[in-house]
């Protein structure tokens, strides 16, 4: 598991520049994020957007916590939703308890309860699973996830069986006149916790411990020679990751006012893996990108097409096969070129590649949607509308068009890819000459 791309280290640059200017310039991205988070509800006012943005905030915290393990420490877990789901359950139970006993705990502090629940279970399960790394660790995480998932059907009192446990977030102690009843107020609660968690997790990557995590990921043996026990490093990373997953789960529990077995199901663990990897595990911002994109697609694609999960899976496979660094990795690849001022050299071939890419996308979408029309939506008849064009999926014409698009895209890719390769190599060596490629 030592083959995860190394994040571009900027720690030396950071300290140098900070010293030169005497200004905490590293604060800028965070200030900008805070401003953006504050301003978003005034730009996207509708309830749908507020809901989607709330989901994105939760997904960001969850994906970042997942990347603490996968990206930073090199542990591939298939059961991260366990800590997310348990965080949600504990926060919902605590809220119900606080409502019943009138305990003076305000809602904004509740995510901490989820965090500590996640931490507590990560301490227990992590002790079992971090003794091993690599494939064995992944398998234990899968087994533990199935264990906890199945036990939700046994411990019905706590997990509430099929329906789950509900709560009411407006009935807690109020410090201000905000009840958090509206999605608008809920958004700010999530945004605040999202920012705090992101800063905390970023800060963690800058500490010596964060560096040791990377060392354990790259080469556990050498990390051991330096005097650190990789097992302990993995264990601590696992526990902290469980804490933030618990915070994310608590936010989800508060947002939905419900905790049910779906929250720690296999699909939840799968989604966070997909989102993190699509965004890019090699950088800190990657999971943020992935979480935003995947949450958006989950809501928006499911409106457009019935088989949105298929597109989702295909996108994931495409990223694994062609861009293992994820979206953030793709962007980062071009930073040295931009700095060297040679980015213009690759742009023409990229523009050229847009043509077959578009053909491929349209062809694949046609293939999938026409099949769906004939197989799943038989009752609606063969006439369908795609990209604003109505046609009959039972006639050979559309299928021919689809095949021609796919074949054309294949041929064009074959023709263009050598050109792209040369352009990339030229630009890269030019950048290297100017000392911009490390």
């Amino acid at each position, binding site marked *: *598991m030592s*083959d*995860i791309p190394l994040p571009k280290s900027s720690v030396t640059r950071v300290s140098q520049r900070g010293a030169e200017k005497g200004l905490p310039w590293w604060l800028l991205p965070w200030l900008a994020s805070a401003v953006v988070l504050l301003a978003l509800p005034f730009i996207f006012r509708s309830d749908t957007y507020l809901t989607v943005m709330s989901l994105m905030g939760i997904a960001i915290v969850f994906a970042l916590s997942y990347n603490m393990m996968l990206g930073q420490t090199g542990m*591939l877990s298939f059961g991260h939703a366990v800590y997310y789901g348990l965080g949600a359950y504990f926060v919902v139970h605590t809220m119900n308890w606080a409502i019943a006993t009138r305990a003076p705990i305000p809602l904004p502090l509740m995510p901490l309860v989820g965090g500590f629940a996640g931490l507590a279970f990560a301490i227990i399960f992590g002790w*079992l699973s971090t*003794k*091993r*790394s*690599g*494939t*064995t660790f*992944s*398998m*234990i995480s*899968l*087994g*533990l996830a*199935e*264990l906890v998932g*199945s*036990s939700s*059907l*046994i*411990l*019905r*009192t*706590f997990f509430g069986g099929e329906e789950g446990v509900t709560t009411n977030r407006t009935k807690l102690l109020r410090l201000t006149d905000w009840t958090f009843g509206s999605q608008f107020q809920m958004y700010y609660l999530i945004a605040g916790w999202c920012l705090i968690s992101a800063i905390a997790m970023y800060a963690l990557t800058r500490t010596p411990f964060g560096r040791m995590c990377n060392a354990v990921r790259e080469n556990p043996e050498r990390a051991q020679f330096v005097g650190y026990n990789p097992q302990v490093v993995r264990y601590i990373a696992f526990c902290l990751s469980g804490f933030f997953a618990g915070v994310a789960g608590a936010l989800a529990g508060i947002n939905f006012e419900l905790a049910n077995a779906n929250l720690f199901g*296999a699909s939840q663990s*799968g989604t966070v*893996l*997909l989102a993190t*990897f699509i965004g890019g595990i090699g950088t800190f911002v990657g999971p943020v990108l992935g979480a935003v994109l995947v949450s958006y697609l989950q809501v928006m694609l499911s409106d457009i097409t019935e*088989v949105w*999960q*298929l597109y*989702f*899976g*295909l996108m*994931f*496979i495409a990223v*694994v*096969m062609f861009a*293992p660094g994820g979206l953030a990795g793709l962007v980062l690849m071009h930073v040295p070129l931009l700095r060297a001022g040679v980015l213009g050299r690759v742009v023409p071939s990229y523009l050229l590649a847009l043509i077959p890419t578009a053909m491929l996308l349209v062809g694949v979408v046609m293939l*999938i949607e026409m*099949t*769906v029309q004939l*197989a*799943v939506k038989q009752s609606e008849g063969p006439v369908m509308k795609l990209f604003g064009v109505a046609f009959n999926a039972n006639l050979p014409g559309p299928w021919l068009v689809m095949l021609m698009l796919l074949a054309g895209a294949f041929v064009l890719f074959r023709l263009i890819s050598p050109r792209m390769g040369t352009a990339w190599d030229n630009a890269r060596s030019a950048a290297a000459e100017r000392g911009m490629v490390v």
Partner: protein
Amino acid sequence: MLELVLISTLNGVLYGLLLFLMASGLTLIFSMMGVLNFAHASFYMLGAFVGYQISKWAGFWPGLILAPLIVGAAGMLVERFGLRNVHKNGHVAELLFTFGLAFVMEELVQIVWGKAPVDYRVPALLDFPAFTLFTTNYPAYKLFMLAISLAIFVGLFAMLTRTRIGLIVQAALTHPNMVAHLGHNVPLIFMSVFGVGAGLAAIAGVIAGPALVTQSTMAALLGPILFVVVVVGGLGSLSGALVASLLIGLLQTFAISSNASMADLFAFSGFSPQPNTIMNDLWRVSVAQIAPILPYLLLVLMLMFRPTGLMGNRES
């Protein structure tokens, strides 16, 4: 009681052998690539659905032959055009590729065959009770499943240990470069092993489909159990996979036929926890209810105390 034990043993061995049909392919693929194939249970599901489709057109028996061939070919294509390209990006990428593939295959099956279970029937030729044990009729189809699984198991072992092809495959698993130097086409061997593994899973799907439920969730239900089998048996060990398959098959079959709970066991103590507490849930849960989690419990315990598995020699 004796009746229950006998029937459960038969069912357990049958379930175990079915698991082994899949676990054997998974183990071979693991030895070859060093990666657990997440999509392996998806090939099992695909086998069941393709077999069902062929049985609708041409009857059960052509399906039994054709479906594994078709799925095996699909497996070879996946290896050739998918995994082989991902290989350069490392094991994590390969594992994630198969993970995504499992996801996509479930969606595809749902598009083509829908989400509801399909009506995959036992062939009329085998639709009769084979024998009656005390009061239970044992269906002939289950005996047929048993026979097929045993035949393939024996055939596979014989092929791997007694034939030249088997020797080359075994050598290619451990010393691929040496085998390549001797003039064998190692990528072709890898592709074939992957195809045979997928085909074996498909055979399991075709014969299990009519007896169990043929549905798009069958891969997700069985996949994790399969991992338990190969990990408990020891990654890369075929004989370990056999023992673990039988062990888990018997464990689950016996567990679901028992209704005992702590409350029954300690009924004499007169202890009874408060209703609606976690203690009460635990006290009253029956062995049958915890049957689904037993394999995972076994997995976690095994990895804690004997991480190499029953017969494995790899430790990661």
